[in-house]
């Protein structure tokens, strides 16, 4: 049943994603700088996980972080909304700026920061509450709405942007955990964008999904990037090639190379990048 429902639009969405030519590094640079990391070092206790990472992320574009497992790309991503703060013994050094403002400055409240920098996780993790409540939760805790109608509006808008509205509009009271995996992940995206974040971090958002659901998410990302800065961690190089404008290759905690996606995949500077994207290791 579920597979059928998803299968039909999946055929449609395939077309725009795959053949779209990627813009070069210069094209990405047209966009405004949104986030910038400078000399970021990170330790888990005694063990250093990131070494002098410098990376710029631009508005209205998708930056993909690739690299073998354990290379620090997820760790870096979690620095961007200070999710590492909750991990015991994690220490971050360096400078990460959102719109030129240091997000690790003492006066920055991580809770408010996370409202501006949303996050979607590897495994779909809707709250065990109704679909409506899942999406309305963010606005509720930030006090964005006052009346029920405003909540309803924001829920509809977010679900529509996440491409889920048509599928769930008749069952908003049902539990979010009752949806299929792909729907759950789109629900999580709707939840993340319901508070109007400026940056959306996605940590392998499709690794638990089948190809059809993956295609839907990818289309969605393409749609969302018009108004957002998206940073995605992915293990699928095809996915990075399909959805991102810029790609950063991480290896052993170091940022090896960052450039326009087409450049990384066709003509990388570093031999390690070349080995990785051609599948020689990793």
């Amino acid at each position, binding site marked *: 049943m579920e597979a059928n429902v998803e299968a039909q639009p999946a055929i449609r969405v395939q077309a725009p994603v795959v053949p779209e030519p990627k813009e070069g590094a210069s094209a990405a640079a047209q966009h405004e700088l949104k986030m910038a990391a400078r000399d970021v070092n990170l330790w888990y206790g005694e063990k250093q996980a990131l070494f002098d990472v410098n990376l710029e992320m631009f508005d209205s574009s998708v930056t993909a972080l690739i690299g073998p497992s354990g290379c620090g790309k997820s760790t870096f991503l979690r620095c961007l909304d200070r999710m590492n703060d909750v991990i015991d013994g994690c220490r971050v050094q360096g400078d990460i700026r959102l719109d030129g403002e240091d997000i690790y400055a003492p006066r920055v409240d991580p*809770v408010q920061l996370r*409202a501006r920098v949303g996050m*979607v996780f590897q495994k779909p993790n*809707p709250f*065990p509450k109704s679909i409506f409540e899942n999406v309305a*939760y963010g606005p509720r805790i930030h006090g964005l709405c006052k009346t029920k109608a405003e909540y309803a509006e924001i829920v509809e808008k977010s679900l529509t942007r996440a491409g889920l509205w048509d599928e769930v509009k008749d069952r908003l009271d049902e539990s979010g955990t009752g949806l299929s995996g792909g729907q759950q992940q789109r629900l999580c995206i709707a*939840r993340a964008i319901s508070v109007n974040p400026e940056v959306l971090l996605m940590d392998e958002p499709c690794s638990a999904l089948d190809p059809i659901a993956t295609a839907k998410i990818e289309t969605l990302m393409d749609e969302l990037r018009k108004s957002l800065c998206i940073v995605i961690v992915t293990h699928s190089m095809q996915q990075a090639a399909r959805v991102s404008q810029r790609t950063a290759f991480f290896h052993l905690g170091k940022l090896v190379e960052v450039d326009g996606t087409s450049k990384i995949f066709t003509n990388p500077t570093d031999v390690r990048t070349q080995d990785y994207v051609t599948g020689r290791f990793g």
Partner: protein
Amino acid sequence: MSDAQAIGPAATDSWGSDQARRRVRRRYAADRRLQAYGIIAIALAVGLLGVLITSLIRTGYPAFIQTKVELPIYIDPAKVDPQDPGSGKYRALVREAVDKAVPGIPDDQKRSIGKILSSDAAYIVRDYVVIHPDVIGKTITLPIAVSDPYDQLYKGVIPKEMDALNWTQVRWFERLKNRGLVVEHDGRKSLKLDVYVNPKFVEAGPPPSGDFAVLAQSSLKAYLPRIIDTSLGEMLAEDAPEAIGARVAADPAIIGKTVQIFFPLSPHYATLAKGETPKVLNSRFSEDQLKAFDLLDEKGLLRTPFNWELFFNADSRFPERAGLAGAITGSFYALLVCFLLSFPIGIAAAVYLEEFAPKNRFTDLIEVNINNLAAVPSVVFGLLGLAVFLGFFGLPRSAPLVGGMVLSLMTLPTIIITTRAALKAVPPSIREAALGVGASKHQVMMHHVLPLALPGILTGTIIGMAQALGETAPLLLIGMNAFIPSVENMGILEPATSLPTQIFSWADSPERGFVSRTSAAILVLLGFLVIMNIIAITLRQMFQRKW
């Protein structure tokens, strides 16, 4: 390469070889054995539980019914002042009523016959009249509990008659009988014993005199050496020593010789010699009372209704009037205090330790200590409560407040440990999701983690409470085993008792009625535990959410 070949099975050792087949058989046998051990263990546990419950029900069920007399009582206005019904001569009223129901009792026996009824009979009537003052001057029919021995008799728990001889006494007799010493002599069952007529004790007379009784006893003892029980002497009839006197009178020459003398047996042993079992009336009854009791039964005045008083009466010295209301109220107050203290404190402690506390030596120490506290014997907590709550803070003794505080000391570790386990079991993805949309730590806890952990927390709490409900030792130490004859003045600061301590003190009481009441109280306690566990399961299922 050659090493590897030596280690691995030879190519010829295929799956079909004998060795391989034996290995498979052995593996299956081991699997079956493991399963059998489990089944045996479960069967054993269920069997023992069954035995426990069966024995409790068997001893406890008589306590759930109570023998009562439907006694018509004339509330004589001359004896009860309508202005002050509380202080009438109710004892006299009851005695008159018994007199009317069982007419023709001689005056000197009236007191004794009155003992068929509960000693509380006058108070039962008084309490009724105080509530219904309009019955003064009328005749009312009030079911009045009969006293414990007659209650037990009517329910068939104890017999009217008991064996007169115990089994050792019967065995002595068997030994004599097997030696052919029990004979019929002069129409009486007698013992044929050799007696050395010791000149030191016996003088020829006439009339012959001497310590015949000692002589008779010592010659009987000679047949049953090494028995020091003095009740052996009761085997001979009271007139038995006279047989010696009669022989000496007949033939004084036997002094200084050993002769055969026939001693008549005492009535109980004579009955035994006839092949019957000698019986005596149970010492708790008297013939007159039994006659009156049978008369009441014939008149159809005896009833055995369900014993609601077991639940609605407080404790009493008289088993027929004793109930559990005081114990249930006391347990309820103590558990209430225990819950109000340990639930919030336990959850707060667990949340802090699990979510906020830094991991260092100090928190490690706290954690180890909490785990150790769960294993501390409850009597130690009782001593602590006695020393600190009563001794240092001077809180009232025997009060449910202190009982609840002591119980909460015991329950806290359980609640903290289960709460922490429940918090740990909430998947980290839910926390991340909440943090990711910008929830604060407090919001993550209150909106997501605690609600998801709630079923586990509630289960742990109720199990802790159930444990506290059954706890006896700490309550005994702080004196929460007071004698509470009325629930009217109970409060968390008043002396009280609790279910387990009530069971303890009933189990200590000598009256027969308390034996079945003890079992019944245990059943009631188990009933409450079952109810609490059902609540725990229901709550868990109600709040359980899938993710």
